[in-house]
């Protein structure tokens, strides 16, 4: 299998999500210290602020001057107004917090179920060669399928409630985590396994004490990407058919030609994703505390 390796490799570097956000701080040196770097940091922050002002100020300016049509492209002030309105008066489907909570619930449940399944199946197939050889073509086929289309099926099967979104989100998460766990198990140092066996470890003890901790680096790296997929699953599921959630709010804005509403929904989702990314970074540092300082940790800051 070639795709998991490639996927996992980007994963070890902090995940594509982290890389995406890391673009802002690309100039920051993780290991630099002292007064000189503080000045440098200040300059970077100033430049970051400048980028923000240019993009959003320019956006506001051009739409105010009607050089760009605010009807199609929205307007920062309009987006803020929409957000405040949602927060104060609620959306058309209930309070804003309820919509956020529904989407979060779907994404988190999907993330947890998908991760558990991915780790379990990944470790199992990584350990039992026969099983992995038997299932390999089916997994490849499922992986080749654009999994989003399954959302349509799940909405029909599981209805408009949160179940269909949870299933879709966990399905998306499962594959990301599974491939990394599988690869991680395959990459376990044979020396460590042999040593544990000679010291008297049973097969289960080897898995618990050597295989899983060793694959943990890979698994944790995949979680950054996986939470992104969980959010995608939840939102897409809601867009395909739901009664509550940010996806519904966004679709509703779309149907009413309210571009500001679409942007407002995007901003909320971005904030959720960033908070989740930060939490996963904390988890990573805790679970992989044994490791010497690496760039992975620096890039997820």
């Amino acid at each position, binding site marked *: 299998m070639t795709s998991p390796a490639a996927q996992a490799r980007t994963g070890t570097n902090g995940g594509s999500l982290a890389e995406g956000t890391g673009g802002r701080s690309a100039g920051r040196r993780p290991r630099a210290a002292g007064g000189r770097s503080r000045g440098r940091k200040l300059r970077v922050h100033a430049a970051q602020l400048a980028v923000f002002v240019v993009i959003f100020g320019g956006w506001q300016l051009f739409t105010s001057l009607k050089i760009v049509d605010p009807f199609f492209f929205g307007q920062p002030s309009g987006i803020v107004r929409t957000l405040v309105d949602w927060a104060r008066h609620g959306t058309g489907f209930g309070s804003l917090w309820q919509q956020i909570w529904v989407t979060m619930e779907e994404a988190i449940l999907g993330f947890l179920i998908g991760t558990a399944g991915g780790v379990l199946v990944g470790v199992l197939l990584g350990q039992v060669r026969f099983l992995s050889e038997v299932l390999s073509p089916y997994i490849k086929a499922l992986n080749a399928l654009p999994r989003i289309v399954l959302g349509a099926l799940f909405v029909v099967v599981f209805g408009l409630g949160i179940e269909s979104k949870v299933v879709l989100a966990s399905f998306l998460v499962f594959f990301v985590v599974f491939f990394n766990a599988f690869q991680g198990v395959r990459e376990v140092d044979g*020396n*460590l396994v*042999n*040593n*544990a*066996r*000679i*010291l*008297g*470890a*049973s097969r289960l*003890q080897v898995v618990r*004490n*050597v295989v899983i*901790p*060793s694959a*943990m680096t890979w698994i944790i790296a995949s979680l950054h990407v996986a939470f992104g997929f969980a959010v995608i699953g939840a939102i897409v599921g809601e867009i395909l058919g739901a009664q509550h959630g940010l996806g519904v709010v966004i679709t509703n804005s779309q149907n009413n030609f309210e571009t500001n509403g679409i942007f407002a929904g995007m901003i909320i989702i971005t904030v959720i994703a960033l908070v989740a990314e930060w939490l996963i970074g904390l988890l990573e540092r805790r679970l*992989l505390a*044994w*490791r*010497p300082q690496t760039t992975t940790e620096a890039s997820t800051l």
Partner: protein
Amino acid sequence: MRSNTPRDSQLAQSGRIELSGVTKRFQTPGGTSFTALRDVTMTVEPGEFCAVVGPSGCGKSTTLTMVAGLDRASEGTVSVGGEPVSGIGRGTSFMFQTDALLPWKTVLGNVAMGPLFRGVPKKNALADARDWLRMVGLAGFEDRHPHQLSGGMRKRVSLAAALINEPKILLMDEPFGALDVQTKAIMSNELLTLWDQSKPSVIFVTHDLEEAIALADKVVVMTAGPGTVKDVFAVDLPRPRGAVQEIRFGGGSPSCTTRSGSRCATR
């Protein structure tokens, strides 16, 4: 598994390692077979320290993996304590060339692994591990992780982890190969001291002939392509040997009787 063995001559014999007519062939990816070892016969008596020297690729490590039960001979028999090896034995410890310490466990956790795997209660296992760490001179380092230690200290941890199971057989695959000369000498001394306490049978693989002579009772010389036993030498230096570096630099090595020689002419 073999805990029911009666306390008779069998127990005394259980540290005896015998290889007779052992041949090991590997299947290459191209489909042809490659002979790593051919017709190797050697015996290590209980409590004997046997060094195996030879160029790289002569099947020294392969020999060890077969004695450990990690691999099987293609022909001939490998037996430990009079019984053919049919899997990983309980009384065997292995010290690998590269670190086999778990980087995510603390030093204490690494040493306690052996007893814990064998069902010793956690409290006893940890107390045991602390004792062993003290014995290898690493008291106070219990909570460090392996990457925070120097190469020599990691070797000490490996040694403690290998000896805590009280093996009857200790297999060592160039354990000090990556260390600098001084650290190597210190570790060799320490190994001899610890070995003297419980006297397991040792097969010590190295490509350093001086090291082999300094440590062992018997040196098996192997040649490569395919690996065969060329000759076996007994080393009748008195024990305890004292400082290994003195033997190295002309203390009383059999091939180097003058003290004035700046370096032993064993090569």
